[in-house]
């Protein structure tokens, strides 16, 4: 994918992060989104799905002025200087090198989990539990009081490994960690557990990756997806399900008429 980033400098992207879709395009998106959703609904089937979901995301973009696709591509069509409230201070700076993500990626996501800070903290604090909900992780081993060894799944049955250290640890409040020298993809994270009056705990995860360019960039994309914030959100969602319901529900491996053995029944 070529970088379609006309005359936007890196700082433009940074400052326009929250609304990267121009007002006109927003209107078109909202309308076309509705139409595509409708088209998908009418059509049904695989392609229908794509159209509906695409329609849904266009409609979404139309109403929020924020396009994840553009964001991932580093494209900003909102050059009229419309300012929007900055509710996420994620300060992402992303660019594409040969079509691959590189640079510093900063992601922050929150989700409320109906458990106490203590229950959530103690599960997370045992880093060896993390692969149960962090999709890309294969294993984490505790190697010392503050150190651990992380192994992530990589394409073609390979894996990426690195050592990490705990940078902050406040019981039932927050845990911070970062990779040590030598990691292919330097990364760090903080998780905070904020109690609420009666809604459980607001869990906020902030992650920073140093996304490399080139071949490693491709690896990065495979590991964290085109949209790392989606990955972090997915992990957080799985953490919530695991803590609340004791499992992460799945439909993978279920039966359907698409299985190779499936065939039309004879009466």
């Amino acid at each position, binding site marked *: 994918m070529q970088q379609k980033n006309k005359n936007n400098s890196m700082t433009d992207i940074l400052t326009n992060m929250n609304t990267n879709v121009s007002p006109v395009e927003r209107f078109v998106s909202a309308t076309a989104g*509705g*139409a*595509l*959703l*409708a*088209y*998908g*609904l*009418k*059509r*049904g*089937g*695989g392609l*229908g*799905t794509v*159209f*509906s*979901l695409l329609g*849904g*995301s266009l*409609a*979404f973009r139309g109403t929020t002025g924020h396009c994840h696709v553009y964001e991932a591509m580093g494209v900003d069509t909102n050059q009229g200087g419309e300012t929007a409230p900055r509710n996420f201070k994620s300060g992402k700076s992303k660019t594409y090198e040969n079509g691959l993500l590189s640079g510093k990626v900063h992601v922050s996501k929150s989700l*409320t989990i*109906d458990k106490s800070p203590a229950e959530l903290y103690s599960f997370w604090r045992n880093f060896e539990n993390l692969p149960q909900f962090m999709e890309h992780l294969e294993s984490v081993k505790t190697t010392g009081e503050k150190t651990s060894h992380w192994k992530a799944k990589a394409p073609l049955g390979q894996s990426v490994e690195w050592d990490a250290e705990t940078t902050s640890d406040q019981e039932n409040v927050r845990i911070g960690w970062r990779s040590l020298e030598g990691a292919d993809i330097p990364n760090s994270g903080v998780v905070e557990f904020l109690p609420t009056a009666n*809604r*459980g705990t607001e869990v906020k995860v902030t992650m920073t990756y140093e996304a490399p360019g080139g071949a490693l960039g491709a690896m990065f994309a495979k590991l964290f997806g085109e949209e790392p914030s*989606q990955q972090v959100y997915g992990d957080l*969602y799985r953490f*919530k*399900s695991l803590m*609340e*319901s*004791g*499992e*992460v*529900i*799945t*439909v*993978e*491996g*279920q*039966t*359907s*008429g*698409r*299985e190779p*053995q*499936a*065939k*039309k*029944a004879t*009466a």
Partner: protein
Amino acid sequence: MKAVCWMGKHSVQVMDVPDPKILNDRDAIIKITRTAICGSDLHLYNGYIPSMMQGDILGHEFMGEVVETGKAVSNLKQGDKVVVPFTIACGNCFFCKNEMFSVCDNSNPKPEGQETAYGFAGSGLFGFSHLMGGFAGGQAEYARVPFADVGPIKVPDSIEDEKVLFLSDIFPTGFMAADNCNIKEGDTVAIWGAGPVGQFATKSAFMLGAEKVVVIDHYQDRLDFAQANNPNVETINFDDVEVHDKLKDLTGGRGPDSCIDAVGLESHGTSVDSLLDYAKAAVFLATDRPHALRQAIFCVRKGGTVSIPGAYGGFMDKFPIGAAFNKGLTFKMGQTHMQAYMPRLLAAVEEGKIDPSFVISHRLNLSEAPMAYDNFNTEKNQWRKVVLNPNG
């Protein structure tokens, strides 16, 4: 096993597919003894619900016998007779704890679709598209039931399947529709749609103390059926009679205290607004055809309630917000919070207060599903509710 698969718009097929397996610790496998076709299945059949894939197993109204349980299920054992609710719910999240089971946080393994389309994702549903989690359904010989320690309700072996089968959906759905009307002594409730959901909403409105129910449809046999099965029902065939005027007539000019839309997104009609809906849906400017809903909003009395069990999926055009606002209306809607209603409705069946099997018009074998879908979709006078037997 044999299963009814969605193959595309207006196409279902009975296929031989692999048997289901336990995938999560809180799962159970149920051997299905009875399963039904729902008006909701017709929305899939007619291609109105996005994100269906060829080969998806249909069906969300089923019951049977427990044959296997996952490690974490201790309240069910092999041989238990259970009815399975169509909404899948964890029982642990904020919403489940507050009895809003159909918006459970943890039962939809694919929340992204609804988060994009609706802002947040509802619960998983059996056999109801990948937006709703993509779970294989229960028009089959066996089904995998997630969160089996929370969903399925045990029923006595002595009770006939047909009397409890509809605890899986349409009885609680009709009941919640009426419950949402907050019925008071002397109330008149108007119900659009004399399908199975409308029939159960009618029975439930009386169970909850309504004085009179007015049922609106254009299938005369369905209207007559509602009248024959209840004490104080008036009917309006909208092909012959102007609905708003007639409702005023029937309520001394007040209008019904509450209106129930048991039609959903495929409303029929030939009024100007509904013809426009057909046209817009055809060119994709709107997705749902909400003629009945508009009429309900228009007809309900001031300060009344509009309760919507009929299913909607996308956008509606010409929502009469002015009427809703200036009359000070209350709206209640949603997929049914099944688990919240099943125990008390099972009790009502056991106490003989209602025999839900009254609604059945056809009893067929699973292999006859394609023919049954076709007829239920078009021959609505005769085909009111189809029950399938997977072992027949």
